């Protein structure tokens, strides 16, 4: 990469960056601040208070939905990481196997496919299979969506690896599986971790696909939040959102540590 000393930032660049980043962050900051508002009126500042957090922890239905979301996110992220990593290995190391174009198409399409289509089609499948809708159907649906994200994250990492490492391992007498486990896996581990965390947060976030594929009595957190938000702004929702943002912030710090770790091993990797 070239030195960038000659490229000075113009005032235009600085303005664009400053406006852009405040646009991205201001609404979230305001939301977090107002979650500590003592007043019931969301927009009138009544001093700092934790009452809406207390309200949330006394809201049985919300807590059940949060627990359901957490279980779905953890299970689907784990399944998706397994399948997505296998898919990435196949695409970057499998050369031209039969059906490769169809396979990569099936992996890339869900990344942009409107969620109403994915959700509706999965529901019709579950109905045709006569599957009982609830935890497992939502988990399968989320796994299908998020494994594609994991595959892309891991595949871009695998593509940046030096293939001679694997060849060296084999020259030293490893069979292919051992060479992969000993030479390649440790190097892609940070991106696998980042993939898991991305899958986890995507699942925690999803409203549309979960609405289609869940059954009566098993709402996820976004489904509950959505039905509350349709009725108007409630301070309790601000508190829940702040808690989710906090949880995701922890995950992001974890992911960036993972990325740092992989940087420290000599190659650059972005979490996405």
């Amino acid at each position, binding site marked *: 990469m070239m030195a960038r000393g000659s490229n000075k930032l113009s005032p235009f660049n600085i303005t664009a960056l400053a406006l852009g980043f405040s646009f991205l962050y201001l609404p979230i900051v305001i939301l977090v601040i107002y979650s500590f508002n003592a007043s019931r009126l969301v927009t009138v500042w009544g001093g700092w208070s934790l009452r809406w957090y207390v309200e949330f922890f006394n809201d049985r239905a919300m807590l059940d939905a949060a627990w359901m979301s957490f279980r779905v996110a953890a299970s689907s992220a784990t399944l998706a990481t397994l399948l997505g990593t296998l898919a990435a290995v196949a695409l970057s190391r499998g050369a031209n196997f039969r059906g490769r174009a169809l396979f990569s198409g099936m*992996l890339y399409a869900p990344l942009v496919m*409107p*969620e109403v*289509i994915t959700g*509706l089609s999965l529901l019709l499948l579950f109905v045709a299979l006569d599957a009982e809708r609830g935890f497992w159907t939502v988990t399968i649906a989320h796994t*299908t969506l998020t494994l594609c994200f994991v595959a*892309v994250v891991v595949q871009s990492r695998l593509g940046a690896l030096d293939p001679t490492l694997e060849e060296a391992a084999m020259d030293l007498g490893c069979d292919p599986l051992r060479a992969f486990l000993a030479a390649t896996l440790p190097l892609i581990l940070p991106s696998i971790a980042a993939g898991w965390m991305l899958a986890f947060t995507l699942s925690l976030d999803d*409203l549309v696909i979960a609405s289609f594929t869940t059954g009566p009595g098993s709402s996820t957190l976004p489904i509950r939040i959505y039905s509350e938000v349709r009725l108007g702004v409630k301070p309790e929702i601000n508190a829940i959102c702040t808690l989710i943002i906090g949880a*995701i912030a922890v995950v992001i710090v974890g992911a960036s540590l993972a990325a740092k770790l992989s940087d420290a091993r000599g190659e650059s990797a972005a979490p996405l």
Partner: protein
Amino acid sequence: MSAPSIFTRPARLAVIAPYLWMALFFLVPFAFVLKISMSQTAIAQPPYTPVFDLTAGWEAIKAAFAALSADNFRLLVSDDLYVLSYLRSLVVASVSTAILLAIGYPIAYGMARLPRRWQSVAVMLVIVPFWTSFLIRIYAWINILQHDGLLNQVLLALHLVSAPVVWLSTDSAMYLGIVYSYLPFMILPLYATLAKLDPALLEAASDLGSSPARAFWLVTFPLSLPGVAAGALLCFIPIVGEFVIPDLLAGSDSLMIGQTLWLEFFTNKDWPVASAAAVVLLLLLLAPLLLYDRLQRRQLEAR
């Protein structure tokens, strides 16, 4: 792509599980959507008359094929509600993508010109909101845009308006929500291409007497077009089918197709019409989807 290595065979075995999974849970379901889109609505659970019953023998299957009908598709074409929904979705997605490009490009350009050390921080800052819940980010805007929300308070305090302005349930609120939610999807691919540009090209242009503005339009912009295409597709395709943002921020007088589909499915319980709407939506998006697939494959596999 490196020459086939020792990993080729085991890697081919690795494909089996994800291949079967995606075939079963991504590809096969479309067959069901197609099938149900051609069946009749019924007041039952599930609310459609089954088209195929494989246990009933060959004659019954032939009869079932005869019973397939295009009635739902005829309804979609003849009813203004659906036609207008599709049109509105395409218009909203095109306008949003144009706004996203106009806002995202200067930001991505600024990021690419940051000192190297700061670039990864900036990328992180763009990715973080993408990880933060979609629904929460829309909800944050409802907080700000509502009748006695922060925006109206600020405008009133500055005496820019004399009475609170109605922001919620308008198209402006919806566009704001869409641009806000999809901005990272636009910035990241743009930044990825802009950061890779060789600054020597710009120096060459200025050595040959180009003004910075001319050099930008003659050198930087044409070279960044792959990023523009990737960002535009990454935003346009999902926005066409968007449901949550128009539902929470736009008014209810005109609907996008995602909302119409949702309404048919959850409120009217008309699964066949909802399926037909999904089939048509997919057909509309087929060309951009194929283009996106090609771009994605080139980016991830042609190293």
